[in-house]
């Protein structure tokens, strides 16, 4: 365990730790582009220069191991001058694209320019022109001119996904990142290269030109795309959600997340949402406020207690299940079913993050059922003719439920089918009641991932003001008072 001094602060680090890791541990600012904690060391950007006492030459912090008694600093005037020049080298052929570049506002070059910029450009020559708007595959667009050749994306595809789609072609200042002929960047983790690109060279087709990043607010939550439960940051503004990015969590997802998870924001925006409760009788639809509808369902439920059943999916929080089970048991309901979307693929795993169980809280559902002493039966065994009333806590991400239509049609043979859903879908109109639910960005709660790790999701904003969470539904169905917001800050219908 060597001890060292970084910018005057002492620290003891594990054997084999590099100087840049020691800097990060001490939360000292150190400029870097090519170094990424989740990838190997490339040492090509040369930004992380430090002065190591006893060594006349400046060293790069990413490839220098901490030794006992080492004294390293990046506050030295010599280091600052070196970094200024190296940043200058990065910028001499960089195009003036900031106005049209999606990265502007979160760009490494802009960030360091504020600290290390020379502000008086000495470069008077023509810039090297390279290809712009290169289509790398279904998800990513490349701008070679903006690229600083930090090699992060290339290392990502070779070390993390091991698909090796990307490579650096040519040499010198004509070097360009690219894909091989007829082998586009097409893996389920491709958006990560956009995240790790420190400049605007790789941009996401999904997010491209939709918003400037400084208009977005963000909050940390958990991805609801599968049972891995990746830690993510969701970005939104008053017009809705725009993107999801991974947040580092050593235990769960490391630095990355899959492309499937990145689509999760698409199901929460207003245009996809069920905004009011609907009663479908004899081909006519009637709109209700969700609370009112729930109370009427409550009245129905009291009449049909013995023939009622509840179907649950693993897409709600543990707290919601607990409250729902308690209420249903109070009513005296005995039949609970677990609707599994793809039973044959439940145990699948792509080797990195994505799991076959596309529900974020299957483990939580089972645990809460066990706690409440409830025997969850498989929804396949549900006989709609035996039950006069079925309450389905439907999936939030309906795309993961290929048997959605089949199930709705089958269960609607029951006298009353109540469907709780956050998304609107014409398929659901076979149900007799539809009650709008909150999406995962609108409520607090716990998701238990496949390993049993409990993770908190957080309410970021409200999109559909009147939508209920499952526990609010459970309160309202008893006829009790629920406080819901009647207005939505995102301009949704109240």
């Amino acid at each position, binding site marked *: 365990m060597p001890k060292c001094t970084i910018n005057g602060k002492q620290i003891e680090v594990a054997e084999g730790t590099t100087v840049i890791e020691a800097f990060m541990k001490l939360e000292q600012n150190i400029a870097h582009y090519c170094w990424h904690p989740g990838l190997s060391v490339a040492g090509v950007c040369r930004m992380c220069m430090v002065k190591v006492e006893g060594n006349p030459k400046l060293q790069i912090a990413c490839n220098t191991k901490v030794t006992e008694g080492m004294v390293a600093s990046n506050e030295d005037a010599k280091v600052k001058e070196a970094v200024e020049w190296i940043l200058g080298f990065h910028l001499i052929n960089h195009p003036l694209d900031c106005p049209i570049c999606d990265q502007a506002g979160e760009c490494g070059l802009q960030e360091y320019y504020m600290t290390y910029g020379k502000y008086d450009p000495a470069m008077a020559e023509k810039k090297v022109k390279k290809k712009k708007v290169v289509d790398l595959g279904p998800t990513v667009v490349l701008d070679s001119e903006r690229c600083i050749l930090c090699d992060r994306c290339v290392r990502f595809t070779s070390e993390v996904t091991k698909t090796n789609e990307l490579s650096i072609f040519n*040499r010198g200042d004509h070097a360009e990142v690219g894909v091989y002929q007829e082998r586009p960047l097409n893996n389920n983790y491709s958006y990560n290269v956009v995240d790790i690109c420190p400049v605007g060279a790789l941009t996401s087709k999904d997010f491209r030109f939709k918003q400037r990043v400084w208009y977005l607010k963000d909050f940390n939550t958990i991805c609801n795309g599968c049972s891995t439960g990746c830690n993510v940051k969701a970005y939104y503004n008053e017009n809705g959600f725009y993107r999801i990015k991974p947040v580092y969590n050593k235990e769960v997802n490391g630095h990355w997340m899959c492309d499937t998870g990145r689509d999760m924001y698409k199901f929460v925006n207003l245009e996809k949402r069920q905004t009011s409760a609907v009663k479908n009788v004899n081909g006519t639809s009637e709109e209700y406020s969700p609370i009112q509808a729930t109370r009427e369902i409550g009245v129905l439920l009291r009449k049909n207690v013995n023939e009622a059943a509840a179907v649950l999916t693993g897409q709600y929080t543990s707290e919601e299940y607990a409250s729902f089970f308690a209420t249903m048991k109070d009513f005296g309901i005995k039949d609970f079913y677990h609707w599994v979307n793809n039973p044959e693929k439940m145990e699948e795993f792509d080797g990195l993050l994505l799991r076959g169980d596309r529900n974020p809280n299957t483990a939580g559902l089972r645990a809460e059922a066990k706690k409440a002493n409830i025997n969850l039966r498989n929804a396949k065994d549900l006989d709609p003719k035996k039950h006069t009333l079925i309450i389905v806590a439907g999936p939030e991400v309906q795309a993961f439920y290929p048997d959605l239509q089949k199930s709705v049609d089958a269960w609607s043979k029951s006298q009353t089918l109540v469907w709780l859903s956050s998304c609107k879908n014409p398929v659901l109109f076979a149900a007799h009641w539809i009650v709008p639910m909150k999406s995962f960005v609108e409520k607090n709660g716990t998701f238990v991932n496949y390993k049993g790790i409990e993770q908190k999701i957080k309410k970021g904003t409200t999109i559909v003001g009147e939508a209920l969470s499952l526990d609010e539904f459970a309160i309202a169905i008893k006829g009790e008072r629920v406080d819901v917001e009647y207005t939505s800050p995102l301009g949704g219908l109240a």
Partner: protein
Amino acid sequence: MEVKLLTEHYDKDEFQGISGYKKLGGYEVLKKALKMKPEEIVAEVKAAGLRGRGGAGFPTGMKWTFLPNNGQPRYLLCNADEGEPCTFKDRMMMERAPHQMIEGMIISAYGIQSKKSYVYIRGEYTYAARVLENAIKEAYQAGYLGENILGSGFTHHLDVYRGAGAYICGEETGMISSLEGKKGQPKLKPPFPAVSGYLEKPTIVNNVETLAAVKYIIRDGAAAYKKHGTEKSPGTKLFSLSGDIRKPGNYEVPLGYPLKDLINNEGGGLKQGRSLKAVIPGGTSAPVLTAEEAMKATMDYECLAQMGTMLGSGAITVIDDSRCMVDLLGVILHFYHHESCGQCTPCREGTGWIDKVLNSIIHGRGRQQDVDLLDQVAKNMMGRTICALADAAALPTISFVNKFRDEFEYYIREGRSKVKGSSYAEMHH
């Protein structure tokens, strides 16, 4: 005076084939070496004070002792990627005396206990590669290569690998990358190749001339070898003499030989009516010497280091007063710009920047501040990259700009060269 140690039989055509080589005492040293202990060979090379002849001048014996004793297979790589502009000694050595080098390699490989070695030869050296491949075939047939060489129990295999024409593959880690089948780009150091090189195994990379010299150290013994040259730079060295000189060519002289004599005696002096302006003493990446400095210089590592330049690969380029230094630097930097591998930002962008500034000056668009800019850019590239290519581009720039500042200023002011009739721009337009 020339001392013909390595080049003794170079004038005889038969020296190229194995029969002629053996007639002139070939492979006798190998027999002697195989009777010695490997450690004795390393000790002998170390005692001889042999320094790498490729450019960096690192003591060979010391390099060999860096190999870790961890039981991993070791590799010996012969660096025959002679990319340094104006250098042509390795080519002659391989074309004239391939067996001399092969013998040196087998002895060295025995010394460091390597079972496999490669000759990484420059792609443009098609003839040399053919000669070498033929010689290796002959050596296999004669039992000097392969399993159980000459009944000693030592096994060694040798292969030739042809490069694809990149200067950067002459850098040892770049060469290793290329040999591994990857893009020829230098690797981060540490780890050094002696610890983790080719296929992440301990690897020694030596120049053609270094390996050939090993043969003579073992033949004559360290003490005899040390009689040539100076105290700190022992031995002989091949110098590739080129430029504005009457008799350009390779000359083997002991280290410490005066540069003046090399130019005037071996090189036959300058052309009629010309006077010396400058000399680049160690390939284009070495800082230039002015005529006065060149007259005082002796060709050894210490003297040249003291003068702020280096012995490098031993390529001496003589520049007379008919040459324009701005044009010359333009040509040199065009080369480094073209050959930068593009990994490290300061080199990738810096070489291009300097090349473009020089190009602007040459085309009459120079600005007064450009002279200082060249100096500054070069100084800020230096020592900040993985390999020494940035230094190789920066050192000549700094020395040219500082030692011949008046020529640069004249070029910028007048839009044409100070030396009449030599302008690069005039040549091309």
